[in-house]
C-alpha cells in the first residue's frame, strides 16, 4: 500500500483538495457523496486519489442516501465520510439524526453556501444552526469551524479520530471561500507527528459464531415507551456533557486589557485577527476570541475572557443574520456585557468592515 504522505511537505492546495488528502492520511476507507457546490472538488480529488490507495467511493442518488450509506458503512466497521452544503446539508439532517441516536462515528464536511433555499453557491456562515442543532434531536455533535487550510488538514484528521474515539457524529464546518481558495499548508503523515489514528471497529458483522461465541447485535433507534426514550436521551446527554470539556477548543489573544472583544468563528476570524492588530496599532484596546468547536461551545472560556478583560462590549461579526450570535447568547446567558453585531449574511467580511464597526460603537 502506498504511503499517503511520505514526509512532511509544503503544499499549495484548495480547501477541497486538502480535505481529500487529509481524509486519505486519516485512513478513511470510503466516501459516499452527491454533487453540490461548493464541495464538489472533495469528490473530484477523492475519486482520483482513492483507487491508488485502495479506498472506495460511491456517488449516491441524493444526499439522504449519501448520509445513510455512511451510517451503514460505519456500522459495518469502516471509516466512511461524506461532504455536502446548503440544501444537501438540510437533507442530511435525517441520517445525522440517526448517527446521533445510535452513536455512529460519522464524519461529514460542510462547505457552507448562501441561503435560505438554493441561495448562492458561493459562501456564507448560514449553516451554523443546522450543523450544530439540526434534526429532531438535542445537538449531540462535534462541530469544528476551520479558518485556514492548515486547520482543514489538521481537523479532518482529528475529525475522524474524534468520531471513532467518542462516537458522536463529527463535522468540519467550512465554507465556499475555504473550499475554493488556494493557500499553502503543511501536509504530514499523522503518525510521524505522534498522532495515533483511532482504529475502526464493527458494530455489526462481528467475528464469532452466534449462540456459541457471542450474542447477536440488535441495534435500534426507536422505542415503545416514553420512559425508555427518556433514559436513552438522558444517558446521551450525560455522556456528551462528560466528554465536552475534552473536546472544546478555542483561540484568544489580546483579551486581558480589552475594551471590546471581537467574537468570530471560521474564516471571518482571519479578518478579526487582522482587525485586532490594526486597532491595537491605533491605540484601541481590542481583543480576539474565536470558538474552534461550535459544539461543544467554549462557554466557560468565553465567560473568563469577558471577566478578566472587564471589556464593556462584545462585537459578534458573522456572515449570517445572527445564527452565531444566538448560539453564543444561549451559552453566555447572564453576562451583562453589551453585545454589538455585524451581520453580513452570505457575504465576506474583511478587516475594514470590523474596524469600522468597532469605531462606530466605541
Amino acid at each position: 500500500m502506498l504511503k499517503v504522505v511520505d514526509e512532511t511537505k509544503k503544499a499549495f492546495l484548495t480547501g477541497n483538495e486538502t480535505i481529500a488528502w487529509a481524509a486519505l492520511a486519516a485512513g478513511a476507507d470510503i466516501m459516499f457523496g452527491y454533487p453540490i457546490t461548493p464541495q464538489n472538488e472533495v469528490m473530484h480529488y477523492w475519486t482520483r486519489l482513492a483507487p491508488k490507495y485502495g479506498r472506495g467511493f460511491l456517488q449516491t442518488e441524493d444526499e439522504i442516501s449519501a448520509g445513510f450509506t455512511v451510517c451503514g458503512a460505519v456500522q459495518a466497521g469502516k471509516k466512511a465520510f461524506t461532504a455536502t452544503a446548503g440544501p444537501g446539508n438540510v437533507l442530511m439532517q435525517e441520517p445525522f439524526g440517526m448517527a446521533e441516536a445510535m452513536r455512529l462515528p460519522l464524519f461529514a464536511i460542510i462547505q457552507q453556501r448562501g441561503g435560505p433555499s438554493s441561495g448562492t453557491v458561493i459562501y456564507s456562515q448560514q449553516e451554523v444552526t443546522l450543523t450544530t442543532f439540526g434534526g429532531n434531536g438535542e445537538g449531540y455533535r462535534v462541530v469544528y469551524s476551520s479558518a485556514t487550510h492548515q486547520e482543514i488538514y489538521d481537523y479532518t484528521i482529528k475529525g475522524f479520530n474524534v468520531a471513532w474515539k467518542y462516537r458522536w457524529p463529527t463535522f468540519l464546518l467550512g465554507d465556499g471561500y475555504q473550499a475554493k481558495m488556494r493557500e499553502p499548508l503543511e501536509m504530514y503523515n499523522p503518525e510521524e507527528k505522534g498522532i495515533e489514528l483511532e482504529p475502526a471497529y464493527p458494530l455489526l458483522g462481528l467475528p464469532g459464531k452466534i449462540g456459541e461465541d457471542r450474542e447477536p447485535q440488535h441495534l435500534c433507534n426507536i422505542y415503545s415507551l416514553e420512559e425508555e426514550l427518556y433514559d436513552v436521551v438522558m444517558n446521551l446527554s450525560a455522556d456528551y456533557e462528560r466528554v465536552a470539556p475534552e473536546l472544546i477548543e478555542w483561540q484568544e489573544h489580546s483579551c486581558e486589557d480589552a475594551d471590546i472583544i471581537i467574537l468570530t468563528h471560521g474564516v471571518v476570524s482571519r479578518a478579526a485577527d487582522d482587525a485586532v492588530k490594526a486597532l491595537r496599532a491605533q491605540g484601541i484596546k481590542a481583543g480576539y476570541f474565536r470558538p474552534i468547536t461550535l459544539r461543544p461551545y467554549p462557554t466557560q472560556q468565553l465567560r473568563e475572557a469577558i471577566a478578566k478583560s472587564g471589556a464593556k462590549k462584545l462585537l459578534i461579526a458573522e456572515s449570517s443574520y445572527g445564527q452565531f450570535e444566538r448560539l453564543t447568547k444561549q451559552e453566555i446567558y447572564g453576562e451583562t456585557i453589551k453585545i454589538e453585531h455585524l451581520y453580513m449574511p452570505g457575504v465576506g467580511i474583511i478587516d475594514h468592515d470590523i474596524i469600522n464597526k468597532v469605531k462606530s460603537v466605541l
Partner: protein
Amino acid sequence: MITPAVPKSWYLPSKPHKFCPGCGHGIVLKALGEVIDELEIQDQTIFGCDIGCSLLSWNFFACDSTQTHHGRTTPVMVGIKRARPELISIGYMGDGGGYSIGSQHLLNAAVRNERVTLILVNNTNYGMTGGQMAPTTLPGQKTETTPYGRDPEITGYPTKGPEFIAQVTPDGAYVARATVSKYKQLKRFLRNALRNQIEGNGFSFVEVLSTCPTNWRTNAQQTWHFLEDEMEPYFPVGELKSPFSKGGEK
C-alpha cells in the same frame, strides 16, 4: 405437547413475536429464517428493517440486525454491503417504505445492481400508522385516507414494483413476486434471492403479497379471499427475472 419447529436463526427471547394475529409478516419471516438456516449464512447475515410494521422484526433473528428511518433501509444496507462485501445484506421493508418514501433509493439501488437482497412486504396499506392508502392500495379499496375507495383518477394506479424493477435492472438481477398463500414457492424465491447475492450476480428483490386483517377489518375467511381473489390477480406472482432459469418461474 407438540411444539412447532422454529428456525435456528430465530432469536427466541423475542418470541412470541409482536405482529397482529393474522398478519403475514410472521410467515415471511419464518420462510426467511428457514432459508438462512438452509444456506448456513446466519453468522454473516446482516438483517436491516425499516419503519412501519416491518420494524417489529428488529430483534426477530439471531443475526446481527440494524434498524433505520422510514424508507432508508435500502441505503443503509447498501452502505454495509459496499463496506464489507463478504457480509450478506438483507433489507426488509413495507410497501410504503419501498415504493413511496424510499422509492428513489430502491430504483437507484436496482439500477446500480447493488449486491443486496431486499424483501418488500405488500399488504396494500400503511399498517403501523393506522391503515392509510399505500402505493399498492387496490382501485376502490377503502383505507383511512381513501374512505370512499381509492380513485385512480385522483391517486393513480397501484405500483407494480417487481415489474418496474425488472425493467431497470441489468442481467444478473433477481426479481420476483411471492405470496404468503404459497409457502413453498415463497421459500424458493427467497432462497434464490439470497443465493443470487451469495454468488454476487446482482441486485435481488422479492415482493411478498401479505395480509393485514387489523386494518382491512376482515375475518379469517375474508382476509384469505382478499389476498387470493383480489390481490393475486392484480399483482401476478412469479419470477420476473432470474439468473437461475431463463424467463423465470411463472
